[in-house]
């Protein structure tokens, strides 16, 4: 017992000669991979429109219920959130919302420096969340690949989409 | 240095009175520790530093710690203070006061008849203490240690866990 304790002490003592693993944070930033789960943003599609279609899947997937939104519809048939609110004092940065999102709208970014001295300031509105870019998926445009009919695109006109089948006709 | 002696004696007396009158057992014990410490100081002033140190180590530092330990385990609450208050009336301490009064009268008479020269200090060093302990009083020391050994064995016997019977 004593021998093993002494051996442990010696091994720990030898750590004097090891370089510290610490990264001196504010001066020296650590590398964060692109898929690091940090501050949540709402992205736009390549045409500059909002990607979010207000399907509520992110709010449902969120384990701490920190996302709240209200869906509404434009005249051209596009859905979008009337408001979109994330309470970052609750958010646990689990990334489930990103996984649930069918349109790649909600994305987590490698940024974590968002501390505030007032708790209210951690509630981000849609204006705070929305960015002017496509995030991690540059070419994806939901309305271009989905079969939904909007003003400038009828059914069957989407990428890789066949013409809708006329169910009243028996012809092949 | 006589006033030091009287000061220590006054502290000891005060603390002893507090030991008796406190309703909370832990507070009473703390006053008792203080009384023992002032007793140790008196021993020191009377030229017996070895006994003074032993007083602190053994009585204040070990035995009283055990007392406090036991009292801590008893989980005394406000109700026990009330109980103490009910017990603490004249009829319970009448007899004690009578006996203590006799001692007080004896003390006063002794003081009036003549008090030995105060603080006639001859310092007793640890060396002398040990020489007398292992010289003329060797038998007493050995008997006391036998008694303590008996106590130790007895305590061990009482505290021993029951031997588990082999399962049949």
């Amino acid at each position, binding site marked *: 017992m004593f021998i093993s304790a002494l051996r442990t002490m010696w091994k720990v003592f030898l*750590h004097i000669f090891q370089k510290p693993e610490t990264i*001196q944070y504010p001066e020296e930033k650590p590398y964060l991979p692109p898929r690091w789960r940090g501050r949540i943003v709402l992205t736009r599609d390549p045409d500059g429109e909002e990607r979010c279609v207000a399907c509520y899947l992110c709010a449902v997937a969120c384990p701490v219920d920190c996302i709240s939104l209200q869906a509404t519809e434009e005249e051209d048939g596009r859905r979008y959130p009337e408001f979109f609110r994330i309470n970052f004092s609750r958010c646990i940065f689990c990334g489930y919302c990103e996984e649930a999102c069918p349109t790649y709208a909600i994305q987590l970014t490698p940024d974590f420096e968002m501390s505030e001295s007032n708790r209210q300031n951690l509630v981000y509105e849609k204006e705070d969340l929305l960015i002017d870019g496509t995030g991690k998926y540059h070419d994806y445009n939901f309305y271009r690949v989905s079969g939904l009919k909007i003003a400038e695109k009828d059914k069957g006109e989407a990428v890789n989409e066949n013409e809708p089948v006329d169910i009243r006709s028996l012809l092949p | 240095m006589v006033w030091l002696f009287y000061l220590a004696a006054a502290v000891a007396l005060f603390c002893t009175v507090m030991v008796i009158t406190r309703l909370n057992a*832990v507070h009473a014990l*703390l006053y008792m520790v203080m009384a023992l410490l002032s007793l140790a100081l008196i021993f020191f002033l009377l030229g017996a530093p070895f006994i003074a140190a032993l007083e602190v180590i053994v009585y204040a530092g070990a035995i009283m*710690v055990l007392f406090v330990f036991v009292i*801590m385990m008893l989980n005394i609450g406000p109700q026990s203070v009330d109980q103490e208050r009910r017990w603490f009336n004249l009829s319970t301490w009448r007899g004690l006061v009578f006996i203590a009064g006799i001692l007080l009268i004896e003390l006063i008479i002794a003081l009036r008849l003549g008090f030995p020269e105060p603080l006639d200090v001859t310092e007793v060093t*640890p060396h002398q203490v040990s020489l007398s302990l292992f010289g003329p009083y060797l038998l007493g020391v050995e008997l006391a240690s036998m008694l303590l050994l008996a106590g130790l064995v007895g305590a061990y016997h009482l505290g021993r866990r029951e031997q588990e019977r082999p399962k049949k």
Partner: protein
Amino acid sequence: MSAWLPWLNIFGVLFGALTTAAMLIWVERRLLAVWQDRYGPNRVGPFGLLQVVADVIKIFTKEDWIPPFADKPVFILAPAVVMTTVLMSFAVIPFAPGIGVVDFNIGLLFFLAMSSLSVYSVMLAGWSSNSKYSLLGGMRSAAQMLSYEVFMGLSLAGVVVMAGSFSLRDIVEAQRNVWFFIPQFLGLVTFLMAGLAETHRLPFDLPEAESELIAGYHSEYSGMKFGMFFVGEYLGIALISSFIVTMFFGGWLGPFLPPFVWFGLKTSVFVALFILLRASLPRPRFDQLMAFAWKAMLPLTLLNLVVTGGLVLAFGF
């Protein structure tokens, strides 16, 4: 000159002890960090040296809260006891010839008496906090410190036999030829264990055991009262280290350098050892701790004492 020399000594030792204890907080954090491949506090001031100042400012300005369910007088008394007893013990340490508050002819016994009184602070803190974790911590500390005190005294008895005195200055002078850690190696090992347990430092810190008792006996303390426990612990480390140096490593004796420097150097080696123990060893279970005291350490010290006594009697050196 000679009239104010004692006062200079008293205040010098007091100031030195308190400064050392405060600096030890920084030293411990830095050393632990070094052994765990980190940096430790290095932001406030050069090398983080002013971290202590920041801590002190924080601890003084914090709310000094006494829980309503606590036993108020005892609650306030407990942290005072630990500071008093440890600082009193520093009075008998001979730092160098001419430096040191008092040369008691029972200096060693005085040290033991003070360390036995320091049990009260932990116990009373645990009891008066009136919370179950504190009480558990107080219970453990009472049992632990009583058991380790028994052989703490006995482990030093060998040194006393060899030096023939309870006076710490005489003990240091008796080590002119050979430092006592060679003939009294067993005594050194056992005293080191006892010292660890008395200061409840990390392998034996069961009274506070963060992982099971929150903070043990000082769970309910805050502000400067907690600070006093904290500083008291570091004072305890400095005290035990300087005591080991005095008893086993020839105190201020050493070639070339001035005596006080030797004393400081040797003491800091033991302080580092204490911190290394914290960095490397896990905490034992409570029954293991008690069994270790009574079944391993006590027989060892008794054996040491008997052998030392026999040899001194036979050869009379």
